[in-house]
């Protein structure tokens, strides 16, 4: 199932990137290029043949793990991508950890104290988080924490400190969404009969929330993680630009700027694959949390 989806993704992206107006050869060649040089360059860039022909050649190479050569740096796109991937994964996982650390407790507290001031406050915060353009938040964070207070660096990826602001920038929206999901999911679970059963057993309230309720509430929360992973990657595009974080997102933005079609296509295809794989992993995590799903898999 993974392969056909990827092929289709590759096609969609390949088609989009190749309808761009203008012959890409001109943006790569020097100003004094002769016809022969242009022809040679076209050949080298794999621009000869019809779109369909080129697509099948591309797919053929893709299946061998070859994403082509960057128009600009003449480097292997796979190599470039793999150079950037760890940074993006670092940022994405920090973002998720960050969002979880904020959102889970907040959402749970809000749900347990439904309609209290803390509930209202966290819901208002979550709404604001959802409504704030993340790049703007990033800029505000730089002004406050980097310029005024000097606590964190404003960019680059040296050390743990430099990941905090970008992770928060991307994570704010996710945290907001997670807080809301956690809260509503907890509220759902809190009403379930089995919690009453647990209470009637004399299980202390804390244990009920931590053990009985949370584990059930986690199921929809995990779904959100899966759905949001691709958004986290999307959000990191902006944060990577604002914070000069050398990840995949900025790679794509820069490559688009440079009309580097193989890099754009390759990075998007690989990113889609990554999202698909992560969603698969999330399905597996599901099985750990929810025995009903596990049963389905083992059968």
């Amino acid at each position, binding site marked *: 199932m993974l392969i056909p989806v990827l092929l289709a993704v590759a096609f969609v992206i390949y088609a989009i990137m190749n309808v761009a107006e*203008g*012959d*890409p050869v*001109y*943006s*790569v*060649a*020097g*100003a*004094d*290029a*002769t016809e022969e*040089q*242009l022809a*040679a*360059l076209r050949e080298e860039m794999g621009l000869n043949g019809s779109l369909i022909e080129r697509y099948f050649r591309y797919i053929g190479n893709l299946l061998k793990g070859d994403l082509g050569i*960057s128009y*600009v*740096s*003449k*480097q292997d796109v796979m190599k*470039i991508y793999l*150079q*950037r991937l760890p*940074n993006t994964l670092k940022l994405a996982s920090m973002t998720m950890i960050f969002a979880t650390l904020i959102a889970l407790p907040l959402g749970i507290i809000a749900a347990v104290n439904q309609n209290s001031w803390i509930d209202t406050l966290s819901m208002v915060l979550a709404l604001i988080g959802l409504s704030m353009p993340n790049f703007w938040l990033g800029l505000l964070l*730089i002004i406050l924490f*980097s*310029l005024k207070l*000097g606590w964190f*660096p*404003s*960019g*680059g*990826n*040296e050390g743990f400190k430099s990941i905090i602001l970008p992770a928060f920038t991307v994570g704010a929206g996710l945290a907001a969404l997670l807080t809301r999901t956690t809260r509503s999911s907890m509220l759902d679970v809190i009403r379930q009969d089995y919690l009453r059963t647990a209470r009637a057993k004399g299980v202390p309230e804390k244990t009920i929330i931590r053990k009985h309720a949370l584990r059930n509430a986690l199921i929809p929360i995990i779904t959100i993680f899966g759905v949001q992973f691709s958004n986290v990657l999307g959000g990191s595009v902006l944060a990577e*630009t*604002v*914070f*000069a974080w*050398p990840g995949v997102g*900025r*790679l794509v933005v*820069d490559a*688009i*700027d*440079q*009309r*580097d079609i193989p890099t754009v296509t390759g990075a998007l295809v690989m990113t889609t694959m990554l999202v698909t794989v992560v969603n698969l992993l999330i399905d597996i995590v599901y099985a750990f949390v929810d025995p009903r799903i596990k049963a389905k898999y083992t059968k």
Partner: protein
Amino acid sequence: MKKSVVVLSLLMALFIVMTAYASQDTITIGVANDITTLDPQASNTDANMMAFTLTHETLVQIDPETGNIIPGLADSWEISEDGKVFTFHIPDGVTFTDGTPCTAHDVEFTYTIAKDSSFANAKVSDIVDIQVPDDNTVVITLSRANQEFLLLMAHRGMSIMSEALVTADKTEGPWVGTGMFSVENWVPGDYISFVRNENYRGGAAPTRRIVFKLYKEASTRLIALQTGEIDVCVDPASTDLAYIRDDENLNLIQVPNVVMIYIAMQNEKPGLDNVHVRKAIAYATNKEDMIFAALNDEGTVHNNYINAGQFGLNPDIHVYEYDLEKAAEELELSGYKPGDLNFKVMVDKEFKKVAALILMEDLEEIGIGLELEELETAALKGRLNDAALDYELCIYQWTDADGTDFTVRNMYGSFEQEDGTLKKNGSNRANLKDPVLNAMIDEALVEIDTEKREQEYFEIENYLDEIVPIVPLWTSFVNIGTKADVEGAVWMPTAKHDYRLIQIP
């Protein structure tokens, strides 16, 4: 000539010995533009040029102080009396950074493949023959006497590469030169690091490792300098310069920039083929406001058609002062009515956009419509280079300063094709095809008498000013912020800085 080399290298050696072991190990330079390639013949961006300065050498180089040609890889050379034959002598013991020797054969190889490079071919187009009588000598014959051939050979695009390495690996072979540094690690879009060549003839560089780190955002880049993440911040935002001036730990370096920003007009587009329309646009261009808004007033109006500081720059050139009435008059002369003409202007960077918005408003006043087309840098370059020449106006720049001939020839010149028609030279964004001008350029190139030659360039500029193929806008400053104790770097008016001797003692 030889004496000065000895003195210079002695001084350099002394300098190095004194400081090599006491200085900061790594110097990080925050750059605005990404290195896109490490192949000297595959690009002409400033960012790449700075890398080639570290990794490669050219046969000769330009003394930044005097503008004279000084030895590079070749320690001496002779020019034949007719000015067509150049003989370069390459000393013994020159090695590439991987340790293999560099001989005259590598020079021949480099110049030969340059003919196939769409970036370097214009510089070697006059070469008709290259001979290598022995490993230390290369003899180059030109089709015509070229007063600026040595200047062209000093261009970083003519960096000498290793025949063996390039033949073995077309991609990474060109990365290796005979320079003071070699590439250590390159993560495109993030950073590139260079380590010094410990065996460089005449001694190793004072700093072991130089890193170019990319910060696309000017404000982020400056913040990085202020927080100490980087040692040098290239091209801080013009609005932020006060931060550097006011910080005693930092040093602001301002070098008048030779880069010319201009409005390119495709002279063959309907409307723009009318000289009065072009003059109307020139009169409607408010350069002062543009500099004020786009550069925070950190720039100088430029009215000449060649770069500031170049030989033959006409100090008395006629100026199209900003005057909307005159602009309207010119438009009337052209026969077009207000409202008849609508153009598109292409820009890529934010400051050019600001300039275009100001132009837009003034043109609207006199009845010429202007629409802004924002493109990515590469897309814009693609549109300009595309054989279709499908553009009208564009705010663009001319960065090369490799001689006046190179500038006028590339920016305004054309050449005769086999069928007898003229074709514009690569960087002739105005698409100007003027045989009279071509003849003037050719004449000036071969003129040996300096004074006469200067006069000829004055006339070329006056001629251009009559036909207004482009509207020159401004030159600005090359701004660099450094930590106060950074020294040794050579800051270039071309913005292609030389970091070989940079250090923090």
